[in-house]
């Protein structure tokens, strides 16, 4: 008996309905899919026999919008792609643009340090959201409150520096939007001091929790071969034993000056990914401490060349050149010489890459994103076969997809 699935917003080929097999849509609105993911699962009792994730429910046409905005405006939409670490998106895009412009060597050291600081802080904040919501999937509600409170302190730093909690638009071409405000470093010291005890509590709460261990050990095992074949990167790849980290392989924005190590495990199951991300948060804080020491010395926070970076506001009313540069940048932005470049960055979910093409105009010709979440999520098709539905929930949480990035 074959049941024809009606053609609707998703199309599934006709599913052979054997005696006790049932098609279940773990649909776009589901408490444990971490966003708008639909998985058409064919189940036999509680065992998943075929899982085909359907994405596109958050497709925002960001790459098309970016093609119709100026080079400096495009980061507005690009930051809204991976909304758990927007600054990493902005940094990756601007590094690519600066490479095309050929000014990537002139970025002042303080700007690079602040960029590294903000990206490591957003890595911690992003892992806090993963740990919180992942814990809720397994019933650990207290972890959610602990992690979101730590994230709240980090968002205060983004709000103090960039002006907004999530999409501060603080990283710009040639450096930063403005210098760090006064009082920022004291707040940063507060966060650094608070991190250690808070993470010790979270680890004591979750790491050796027998329930979490039973639910995560030997669930969603990925071998190193599969990880490479399915193009997994980030904590998902490092949990299978391969220590590929873009910050170490292709250092950018001054990462070679900081020493941190790349945590890896070998089991490749959900618990290994859990431990890798926890260790990664500690490494990120280690970098933040090293950058903190460098931030005491003031310095230029933007390249001096005002053809790309708008001149300071107060000089506009004083000098004609500043006014002209300001007006030109605001009204029609700068032109980027024709060419294409691929710039990778180590995002919280893996290698986030931008393949930016310019044809010499003042708008990007093409901004192709390499979305780590999409490739990490795709492996669900393979590892969910033969597992319980409850384990598939744990797998989704351990792959940490962000659907703004998956669907772009």
């Amino acid at each position, binding site marked *: 008996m074959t049941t024809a699935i009606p053609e609707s917003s998703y199309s599934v080929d006709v599913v052979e309905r054997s005696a006790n097999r049932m098609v279940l849509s773990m649909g776009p*609105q589901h408490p444990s899919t971490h966003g708008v993911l639909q998985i058409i699962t064919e189940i036999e009792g509680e065992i998943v026999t075929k899982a085909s994730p359907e994405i596109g429910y*958050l*497709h925002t*046409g960001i790459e*098309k919008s970016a093609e119709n905005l100026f080079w400096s405006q495009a980061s507005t*939409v690009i930051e809204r792609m991976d*909304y758990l670490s927007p600054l990493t998106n902005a940094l990756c895009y601007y590094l690519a643009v600066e490479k095309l412009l050929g000014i990537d060597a002139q970025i002042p050291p303080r700007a690079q340090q602040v960029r590294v600081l903000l990206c490591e802080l957003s890595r911690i904040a992003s892992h806090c*959201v993963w740990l919180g919501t992942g814990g809720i999937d397994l019933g650990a509600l207290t972890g959610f409150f602990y992690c979101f409170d730590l994230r709240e302190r980090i968002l205060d730093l983004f709000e103090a520096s960039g002006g907004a909690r999530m*999409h501060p638009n603080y990283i710009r071409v040639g450096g930063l939007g403005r210098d760090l405000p006064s009082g920022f470093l004291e707040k940063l010291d507060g966060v650094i001091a608070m991190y250690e005890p808070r993470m010790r509590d979270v680890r004591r709460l979750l790491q050796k929790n027998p329930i979490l261990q039973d639910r995560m050990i030997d669930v969603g095992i990925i071998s190193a071969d599969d990880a490479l074949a399915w193009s997994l990167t980030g904590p998902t790849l490092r949990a299978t034993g391969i220590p590929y980290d873009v910050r170490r392989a292709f250092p950018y924005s001054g990462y070679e000056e900081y020493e941190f190590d790349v945590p890896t495990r070998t089991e490749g199951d959900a618990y290994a990914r859990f431990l890798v991300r926890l260790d990664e948060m500690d490494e990120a804080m280690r970098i933040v401490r090293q950058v903190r020491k460098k931030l005491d010395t003031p310095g230029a926070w933007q390249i001096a060349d005002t053809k790309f970076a708008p001149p300071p506001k107060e000089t506009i009313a004083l000098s004609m050149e500043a006014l002209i540069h300001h007006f030109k940048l605001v009204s029609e932005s700068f032109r980027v010489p024709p060419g294409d470049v691929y710039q990778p960055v180590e995002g919280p979910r893996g290698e986030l890459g931008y393949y930016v093409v310019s044809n010499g105009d003042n708008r990007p010709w093409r901004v192709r994103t390499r979305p780590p979440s999409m490739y990490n999520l795709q492996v669900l098709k393979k590892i969910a076969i033969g597992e319980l539905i409850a384990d598939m929930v744990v797998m989704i949480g351990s792959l940490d997809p962000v659907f703004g990035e998956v669907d772009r």
Partner: protein
Amino acid sequence: MALGSGGDFLLTTVDAVARWAQSSSVWPLTMGLACCAIEMMTATAPEYDIARLGSEVFRASPRQADLMIVSGRVAQKMGPIVKRLYDQMADPKWVISMGACASSGGVFDNYAIVQGVDTIIPVDVYVPGCPPTPDGLLYAVNLIQQQIKQGGRGGILARA
């Protein structure tokens, strides 16, 4: 029920009590779309604590939810889904359109985004911001409670 003013007094009191009960436990639907969903989750976290308004119980099924918070941009593929979820919610129901993307398409004026969720479902409160701060969402839930108390959609006895 041709009761004199006495009857009205009885009905208005029952209505007032019903509306007070309804407004103090407005249960939202678990439907997180994009960045605003993260701020919605932060609103349930201890710093902003939506539990003070009685709305911390996020129901997974539309059958048990009174409030739909459209938190994020609605893609073309998600439009019919949001419409179906709204229809499947039990009456009386309210809608908060959280953020610029849900209210008007926001920064994404392109082919992929529904330019304002009020083109597909009736919206009661619009929250500005991209994303709005959790305080903005708490204030929106407050406005919904005031609407309920003033009988915006009618109390338990109203036939609206």
